[in-house]
């Protein structure tokens, strides 16, 4: 195992993130804080409780996930797409670095950033709303696992995308809408039957529901299913990455 390479890639990616800390950390924290102010404090005070949880507290897990999912995908995709775009990928391809080691470096850094952002938003939320965490260890585990799963997906996206426009399409046009429709601001049990059933095809529902369960002990779907979906996404992405490195798709000619 080339531990030096893993460490070098990880530190390289983290350093890039810290160089742009205003955009990479403060920006999502600020935008999420605005959600808390508008939906949590202002509108939330006039909303009824959901499953015995105040509306302001109810949306905390969903808003954290909204940022964590987007951050995971964009950070990981950018991390591997940038060297492809700039041409510096030659160094990674010619170095004694296995696919697993490259993934550990890039995805590890992207997931670390997402976990940090998630925890900062969680702390920021406390300034606006009161919330409880029923299962703190599971909450952190779920946060880490979700960050890894979506960072793995982002890594695949970063290799698949031929340009910056394609790179932004998935987070902006697919991931964010699915997250908004995945129960960030509501419980899917509040929807009419047809839309409720349709929502079950949205994988983000399981992610937000699982994370919310870690806070309040109740969810739209079972926690086991939520963990299963996140594991499944991780596994599918890892298989995809393995295939990419084996065939050299989009990396080697």
């Amino acid at each position, binding site marked *: 195992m080339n531990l*030096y390479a893993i460490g070098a890639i990880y530190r390289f990616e983290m350093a*890039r993130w810290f160089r742009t800390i205003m955009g990479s950390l403060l920006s999502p924290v600020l935008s999420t804080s605005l959600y808390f102010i508008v939906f949590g404090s202002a509108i939330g005070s006039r909303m009824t409780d959901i499953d015995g949880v105040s509306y302001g507290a109810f949306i905390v897990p969903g808003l954290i996930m909204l940022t964590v999912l987007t951050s995971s995908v964009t950070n990981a995709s950018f991390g591997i797409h940038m060297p492809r775009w700039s041409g510096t990928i*030659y160094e990674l391809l010619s170095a*004694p670095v296995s696919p697993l080691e490259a993934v550990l470096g890039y995805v590890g850094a992207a997931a670390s950033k997402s976990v940090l952002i998630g925890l900062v938003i969680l702390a920021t939320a406390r300034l606006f709303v009161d919330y409880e965490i029923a299962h703190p260890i599971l909450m952190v585990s779920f946060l880490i696992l979700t960050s890894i799963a979506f960072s793995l997906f982002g890594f695949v996206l970063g290799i698949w995308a031929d340009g910056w426009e394609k790179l932004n399409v998935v987070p902006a046009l697919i991931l964010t809408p699915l997250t908004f429709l995945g129960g960030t601001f509501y419980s899917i049990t509040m929807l009419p039957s047809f839309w409720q059933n349709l929502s079950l095809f949205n994988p983000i529902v399981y992610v937000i529901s699982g994370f919310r369960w870690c806070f309040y002990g109740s969810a739209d779907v079972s926690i086991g299913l939520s963990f299963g979906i996140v594991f499944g996404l991780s596994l599918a992405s890892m298989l995809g990455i393995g295939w990419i490195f084996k065939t050299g798709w989009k990396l080697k*000619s």
Partner: protein
Amino acid sequence: MTPILSIIGTAKTYASGVQALKPVYLDIMPGEIFALLGPNGAGKTTLISIICGIVTPTAGRIIADGHDVVEDWRGARKTIGLVPQELHTDAFETVLSSVSFSRELFGLPPNRNHIEKIMRDLSLWDKKDAMIKTLSGGMKRRLMIAKALSHEPRILFLDEPSAGVDVELRRDMWSLVRTLKAAGVTIILTTHYIEEAEEMADRVGVIAKGELILVERKDDLMAKLGKRRLTVALSQPMDAIPPLLADLDLTLEDSGHSLALTFDAKSDNSGIASLIRRLNEAGIEFRDLRTEESSLEDIFVSLVSEAP
């Protein structure tokens, strides 16, 4: 002596059907400087990219310092350093962090002394804290070399190292290459600056249309294919070569103002003495004599133009 690099029937055909590289067989000896010459698109970069693991070959094997580049890719890659033709850099990194990153990427622990030595040798140390985007093209080229040397490779590939660099940097690089050779590093450089190969190479390979058409020691090649030429500037122009000189390999040039004699560069009997004696005997006066030796470039152009 065991070759440090063996290329055994390596070939590349792209999915489009384009054959970029016909089977190449080549052994490179430890510590030698091998220049791979060829016009743009000849297959030089493809061959280097295959050896370095960037391009997947469709046939053949490559052994680098005893490691098969496919089966024992980790061992092989540790021994190889690559300076690509294009200046691919991370614009927002500092010079020092970029070189240090390269060393660790190749599985070696940080070694500040080694990194500092390389950077000083390349006149980069003063720029260690500078962002790469602020460097000139020449300094970026030095940085690429520093990155390639950071993990102490035994085989160094320089892909068109002089592309777009000024004369001073070119001379500096040649000097560095000689220093590396003295330290036992094997250097394979691709170039279409023949002067570069002529200056440094021990052996020369010529590649054209994906085929390695010739591998020779540079000196042997020049001896074998090199020609010399004597030009005699005549005091009076002539219309035709006089019958007295007809048996010599002479051509009349410059509207009859010059006679040119072409002969083998290494031949003991060049014919110069005979020509001068016979010019005197024929009463032909001349005002100047000039000799020229064909360069590697002339040989290269001749070989490539003859390639099928």
